[in-house]
């Protein structure tokens, strides 16, 4: 078992997304940055989407109640065990009673801590991630609190020596984090693409897992008229009448009536999970066939390390 010692700003269990449940009104949810969660789980010897802890913005701390192996990735400044610094690019071995502390970098938003075997999490439909608006998944459908004790699935047998040898994160898979994100999009018209890609956008202060309001020097001119409620997905860019685009995150609603002006390409949607308020975003326009090629290339590169990786 793991005891939560410090949640930082916000922590929750994220794992399997609710893929295939959108017709019931259920958003995708899951890790805000599924690629980074996949790295943590691979370091821990798990499937890429085993239930893990998502520490948002500030990092956090846990206490191991028994011996265990963990993987930690994301915008990390420092990891320490009982006050001693530790290289977090490897699987980390904890013994009962150890306190593991994670300090976050100023840039980036979400750090993932996976435990070998995975955390136990409430299952609904195809997912087990925390979705707080409906109080489902994760740990009792809510964000984690100091003192929460989380169960670890301990039924998985692994050759620990193999775990150590195999799961040191190679240099080329170590992500860089900054305050300015370059994100490829498919705009829905050339004119919209020009406006979206012309200059960087500032990320508004009210952002969360549902999405981010963007603010630019010049908002979208003549935004399209309001439409009837239609399907929207993580990564879609809506345009309210104000002309300030709204970028939808993993917990975004399944349908919406604001006009859609483009979407983040499938290969880059995981980047949304590392955006935070006051960051900047520069969009680059892709055609759909380019977006698919980038998606195949990214999957190919990452599956050499995370064989079962799936990006939504």
């Amino acid at each position, binding site marked *: 078992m793991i005891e939560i010692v410090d949640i930082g700003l916000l922590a929750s269990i994220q794992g399997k997304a609710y893929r295939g449940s959108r017709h*019931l*009104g259920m958003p995708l949810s899951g890790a805000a940055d599924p690629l980074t969660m996949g790295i943590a789980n691979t370091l821990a010897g798990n499937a890429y989407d085993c239930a893990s802890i998502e520490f948002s913005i500030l990092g956090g701390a846990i206490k191991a109640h028994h011996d265990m192996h963990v993987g930690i990735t994301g915008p990390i400044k420092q990891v320490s065990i009982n006050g001693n610094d530790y290289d977090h690019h490897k699987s980390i071995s904890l013994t009962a009673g150890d306190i593991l502390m994670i300090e976050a970098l100023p840039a980036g938003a979400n750090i993932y801590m996976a435990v070998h075997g995975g955390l136990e999490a409430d299952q609904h439909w195809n997912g087990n991630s925390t979705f707080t608006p*409906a109080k489902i998944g994760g740990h009792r459908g809510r964000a984690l609190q100091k003192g929460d004790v989380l169960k670890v699935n301990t039924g998985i047998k692994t050759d620990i020596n193999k775990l150590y040898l195999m799961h040191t994160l190679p240099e080329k898979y170590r992500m860089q984090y900054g305050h300015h994100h370059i994100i490829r999009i498919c705009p829905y018209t050339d004119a919209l693409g020009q406006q979206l890609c012309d200059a960087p956008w500032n990320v508004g202060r009210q952002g969360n897992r549902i999405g981010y309001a963007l603010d630019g020097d010049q908002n979208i001119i003549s935004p399209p008229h309001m439409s009837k409620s239609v*399907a929207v997905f993580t990564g879609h860019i809506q345009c309210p009448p104000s002309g300030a685009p709204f970028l939808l995150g993993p917990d975004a609603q399944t*349908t919406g009536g604001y006009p859609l002006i483009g*979407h983040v390409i*499938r290969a880059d949607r995981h980047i949304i999970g590392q955006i935070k308020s006051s960051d900047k975003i520069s969009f680059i326009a892709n055609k759909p066939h380019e977006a698919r090629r980038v*998606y195949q290339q990214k999957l190919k590169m990452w599956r050499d390390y995370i064989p079962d990786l799936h990006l939504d």
Partner: protein
Amino acid sequence: MNADNIFIYEDHARITILDDIMRQRLSTALLETREFEEVVLGIEELCVKFDPEYINDNEVKYLISQHLKSRNHDTISSPNHHRLDISFDHSHALDINHVAHIMEMNEAEFQNWFLQQRFRVQMMGFQPGFVYLSHDIDAPEIKRLNIPRAKVAAGSIGFLGTSACIYAHDGPGGWPIIGKVKNNIFDTANTPPNLLNSGDNIIFHLS
């Protein structure tokens, strides 16, 4: 309706289908194929999301076109019928006077009118368990609130004249609220947790 009406955007496709029943039937048929990651009903539109790693544009268009041509989806099982308990108490029905005024009725007349309507679940969306309802009677268009409420209580019934909705969870919302259902329409203790599904028929009963 043919493949020319299917518009593909990298990993999702949109099809405009004005007929509610036809759209619902196609949605059910496409869900059953399990070829798509998501099948989502919208108003006058159906959208499918797919993984370009496994399926290409032509295959998407072919699959949808085949189901549009096929009459197999005409054999969908009958919708469920629900009688939901409603309260028009002013502690819940925050905008009923405003709505009744636009409907050119007094409050009692509006309540009676509402209880006589047969509603159909047009689609689910927005949040888990949330339902969009439609009815067949002409009614004036009612605008959403200028400033959405930060918190609308679970069970609240929103009304826009030609359509209505039921909020499944406490949360923000911009529909004028005319009452509240007493039934729990989303309960994780149940399998499935949602009480209502697309295509279901609903009448409201004063309790």
